[in-house]
């Protein structure tokens, strides 16, 4: 078979542009597949391993406070394999320069091994329980100090080190804590304060862990816990056990109960994993599909052009199988090159992605394994697709009888094209257009495949650029439309409205509007959903609300503006009566019936709204506020911020500007991944149009040379090819734009979670850029594909048969 292999190599050498283009598409497909699959596999494995080794809880119960012995009762429930009672509470952190941040103070009992959601020590050592002295050889802190561990991202963001002091405000007292190390746990992988937060911000939110005894002292909860975590035996009916636990905890004031999948960090992580898995299937499918189509076109053309050679091979005694094998080897080589390069690139991509994930997710041991299975599948996938394309393209070889092959291929059937039936249009076209249209309709298969390729490439451009629109839309609607305030100040405990006066009197404050935030359960038809209800004045201007049609919505004097997601889950609609149970940590739970008068939709987080007065009625209180929104004169912003920091009753100050800055900082990684996507899309489009141009050029060399002999200029001849190219490209671009919208919708569906949805908003400029991108790759591909026009050797081309 030696001579046949030499022929194969020479063929590849002659068509190296096409070979490289199609191999590059396979390379991208395999790289994306291996990169994403490996990143998915590693992230998922790291998560599972971390969860397993640290007894990640199956169910969470929040109560006002309960005696710590209550865990004994819960342990007795069948199906429960472990129970941990602990204290977790958000306290105010006072940084250097009096800056506020929120710390989620969480208690643990040593030894750590038995604990549910146990900690993984990263640096330093575990905190000592009360009275326990540091063991010999360990670094000592000052005697009597309260030792804590801090999450690594907070420590890094605030330059904290061993023995540094962290100051918190708990129960109205300022307390210094001594940091002895950093640690993370399975519930702290993705650190966001709550679902209403856009992104983690380690400068304003952190985890402080401390021994249970210390936590009880700090928060005046001696002998008490406020959270119960349970692990369950596999196959246990979660909801049944949860009901039993809730009835045990009933006397202690149930605040919230939720399963693992609703735990914020886990939900965010799973959301990311779902998106990654969806992309890991979707993206390679596009690339490999297009690569298969290109190979099909190349090989079918090659088989046609080499009909005579195939005839000769058959005449000498090669059988169809050998000849098919020879031509299919071309695509096998494409597959092997693509898979080989794709694997290398994919592993690099996986490393970059893992690095990015390490930045966002607090996983102590990120598995950086090379996923051999993914590589194997990558090769099989690439080979399978290529062989299939090769065999399909070459199946006509079987039908070629050696004698028939000795005759030149009969001219393709003429016949009128569709456009020719539109005679008014047809007569207005010049000859070049007529040739182009006839040629396109003669090669319908290739024409269609090229269009599909362009559609996908332009669609991918739209999706890549859509991400920027989506973020822009989110920033616009979240930071500019919804939040009109400059600062949102929250108090450690609700205060009377008139107590806000000392804030509103500060110089430079232009407007202030109080609000009352109440964690609550909303119940309807036997279903119950946790939600946050915010009370604010119907005349409030510093926070704007929108309904599900993105029309402005107003807080009603009477009745509930319900969060769209909550309404969907409950199956409740406007006009229904729901029951609201308040879950404020202070005071008893209150139940009140409220009528739904409207729907409120927010991009990030949940939230239902009532008037401030109704919120107070729900609590059976008057004129209480938990926070205040401020609009300030920019000239006084710094001074106001400083003054607010000094007020002890203030638990947190969120600054719109700071949130926006934090958000923009996180966009760098996004720009990076968008650039990669855009590059891939351009390359994809280029590869398919280039191939089409090369083939169309080589098929028609004789025809084009004849035109040159007749007196056409090089430019005019290229023009005919360009028209043919444009014909399919314009159609591809036109179809690609709406297709991109559909792809964006599909992608959004795949990645949207309970906590986070984006409407698919694509700006007109995005379509323009995508279309320009499309014409760019089309033009480049065309110019490279037909650069041979200039070198057309008129005499040679007309003399030779092929």
């Amino acid at each position, binding site marked *: 078979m*030696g*001579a046949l292999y030499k022929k194969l190599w*020479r063929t590849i050498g002659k068509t190296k542009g096409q070979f490289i283009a199609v191999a590059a598409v396979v390379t991208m497909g395999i790289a994306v597949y291996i990169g994403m699959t490996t990143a998915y596999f590693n992230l998922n494995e790291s998560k599972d391993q971390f969860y397993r080794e640290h007894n990640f809880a199956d169910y969470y119960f929040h109560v006002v406070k309960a005696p710590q012995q209550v865990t004994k009762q819960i342990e007795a429930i069948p199906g429960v394999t472990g129970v941990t009672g602990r204290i977790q509470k958000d306290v105010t952190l006072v940084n250097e320069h009096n800056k506020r941040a929120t710390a989620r103070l969480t208690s643990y009992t040593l030894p750590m091994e038995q604990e549910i959601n146990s900690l993984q020590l990263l640096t330093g050592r575990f905190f000592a329980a009360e009275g326990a002295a540091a063991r010999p050889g360990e670094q000592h802190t000052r005697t009597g100090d309260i030792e804590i561990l801090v999450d690594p991202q907070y420590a890094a963001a605030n330059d904290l080190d061993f023995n540094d002091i962290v100051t918190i405000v708990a129960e109205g007292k300022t307390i210094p804590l001594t940091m002895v190390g950093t640690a993370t746990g399975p519930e702290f992988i993705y650190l966001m304060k709550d679902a209403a937060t856009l992104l983690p911000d380690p400068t304003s939110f952190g985890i402080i862990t401390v021994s249970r005894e210390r936590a009880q002292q700090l928060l005046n909860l001696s002998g008490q816990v406020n959270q119960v975590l349970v692990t369950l035996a596999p196959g246990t009916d979660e909801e049944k056990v949860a009901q039993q636990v809730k009835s045990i905890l009933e006397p202690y004031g149930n605040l919230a109960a939720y399963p693992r999948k609703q735990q914020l960090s886990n939900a965010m992580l799973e959301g990311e994993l779902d998106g990654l898995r969806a992309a890991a299937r979707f993206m390679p499918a596009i690339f490999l599909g297009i690569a298969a189509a290109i190979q099909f076109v190349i090989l079918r053309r090659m088989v046609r052009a080499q009909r005579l050679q195939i005839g*000769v091979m058959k005449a*000498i*005694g*090669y059988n169809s199988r050998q000849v098919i094998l020879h031509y299919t080897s071309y695509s096998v080589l494409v597959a092997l090159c693509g898979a080989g390069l794709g694997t290398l690139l994919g592993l690099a991509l996986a490393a970059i992605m893992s690095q990015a994930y390490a930045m966002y997710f607090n996983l102590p041991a990120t598995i950086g394994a090379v996923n051999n299975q993914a590589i194997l599948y990558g090769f099989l996938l690439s080979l399978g697709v290529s062989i299939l394309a090769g065999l399909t393209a070459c199946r006509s070889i079987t039908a070629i009888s050696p004698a*028939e092959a000795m005759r030149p291929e009969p001219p393709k059937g003429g016949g009128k094209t569709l456009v020719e039936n539109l005679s008014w249009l047809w007569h207005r076209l010049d000859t070049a257009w007529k040739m182009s249209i006839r040629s396109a309709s003669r090669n319908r298969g290739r024409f269609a495949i090229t269009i599909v390729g362009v559609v996908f490439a332009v669609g991918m451009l739209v999706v890549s650029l859509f991400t920027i629109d989506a973020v822009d839309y989110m920033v616009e609607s979240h930071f500019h439309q919804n939040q009109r305030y400059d600062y949102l100040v929250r108090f450690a405990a609700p205060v009377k409205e008139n107590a806000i006066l000392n804030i509103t009197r500060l110089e430079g404050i232009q407007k202030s509007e109080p609000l009352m935030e109440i964690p609550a359960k909303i119940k309807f038809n036997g279903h119950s959903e946790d939600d946050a209800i915010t009370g604010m004045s119907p005349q409030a201007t510093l926070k704007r609300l929108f309904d599900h049609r993105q029309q402005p919505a107003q807080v009603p004097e009477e009745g509930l503006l319900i969060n769209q997601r909550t309404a969907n889950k409950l199956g409740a609609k406007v006009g229904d009566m729901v029951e609201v149970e308040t879950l404020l940590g202070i005071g008893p739970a209150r139940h009140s019936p409220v009528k739904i008068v409207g729907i409120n939709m927010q991009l990030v987080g949940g939230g239902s709204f009532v008037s401030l007065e109704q919120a107070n009625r729900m609590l059976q209180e008057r004129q209480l506020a938990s926070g205040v929104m401020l609009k300030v004169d920019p000239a006084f912003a710094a001074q106001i911020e400083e003054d607010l920091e000094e007020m002890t009753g203030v638990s947190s100050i969120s600054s719109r500007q700071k949130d926006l800055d934090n958000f923009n900082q996180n966009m760098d990684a996004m720009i990076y991944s968008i650039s990669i996507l855009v590059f891939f899309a351009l390359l994809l489009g280029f590869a398919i149009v280039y191939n089409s141009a090369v083939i169309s050029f080589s098929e028609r060399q004789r025809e084009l040379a004849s035109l040159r002999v007749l007196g056409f200029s090089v430019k005019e001849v290229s023009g005919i090819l360009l028209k043919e190219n444009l014909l399919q490209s314009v159609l591809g671009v036109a179809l690609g734009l709406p297709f991109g919208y559909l792809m964006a919708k599909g992608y959004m569906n795949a990645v949207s979670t309970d906590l986070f949805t984006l409407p698919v908003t694509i700006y007109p400029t995005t379509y323009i850029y995508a279309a320009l991108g499309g014409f760019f790759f089309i033009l480049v591909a065309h110019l490279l594909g037909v650069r041979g026009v200039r070198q057309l050797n008129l005499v040679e081309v007309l003399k030779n048969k092929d």
Partner: protein
Amino acid sequence: MTNNILMRLNGVTRTYHMGEVTVNALGETSLDIYQGEIVVILGPSGSGKSTLLNIMGGMDLPTAGDVFFDNDNLGLANDNQLTRYRRNEIGFVFQFYNLIPDLTARENVELAADLVDEPLSVTEVLSDVGLADRMDHFPSQMSGGEQQRVSIARAAVKNPRLLLCDEPTGALDYQTGILILALLVKINRARGSTVVIVTHNTPIGDMAHRVIRMRDGLIAEIRENASPLPPERIEW
């Protein structure tokens, strides 16, 4: 020359359907080919000579009739059997040489040599046709005569029992044509291969043991040639 029959065609016909037109390329034809002879089939274009050659070469199947080669009926052969027949028994020489443009002269010959168990030496065969110093040239770097010599070498290297030549001199000038014919005679003598040459060039018939004239898809005349001329003495 012995009188053993190598191939027997019995009532062979071939009809083509080209769209709505039916073409009777070959009418009822019966013919024996003997081992070791040189047969020249003469006739104008469209007389059915190429169709006859294609059927003899297992490149095409008859519409009716039997084609026996060594007691095997090619008329009933399937694709695999035809391929094996072409591979092991037949060498083809084409009017337009039909070399693989991406392969050198040597590689074109190797292409055929690779197919059989006991091929002749590729270098020797190429030397025999006078291309010892052109072996590593590509078809595009060779003259027509040289290309046809490669084509003959490619046919001969399998050491086939039957060498079928379709207008082997059709694209060549007189001198070169004579050289090619001489090569075919040389192979016939040295290896005992049967050589069938299809041509419209009547004088070439003088070198044959038998001359078959065809007209309108039928054999018009079979003439035995008691003393064939060496190609060098043929003129046209």
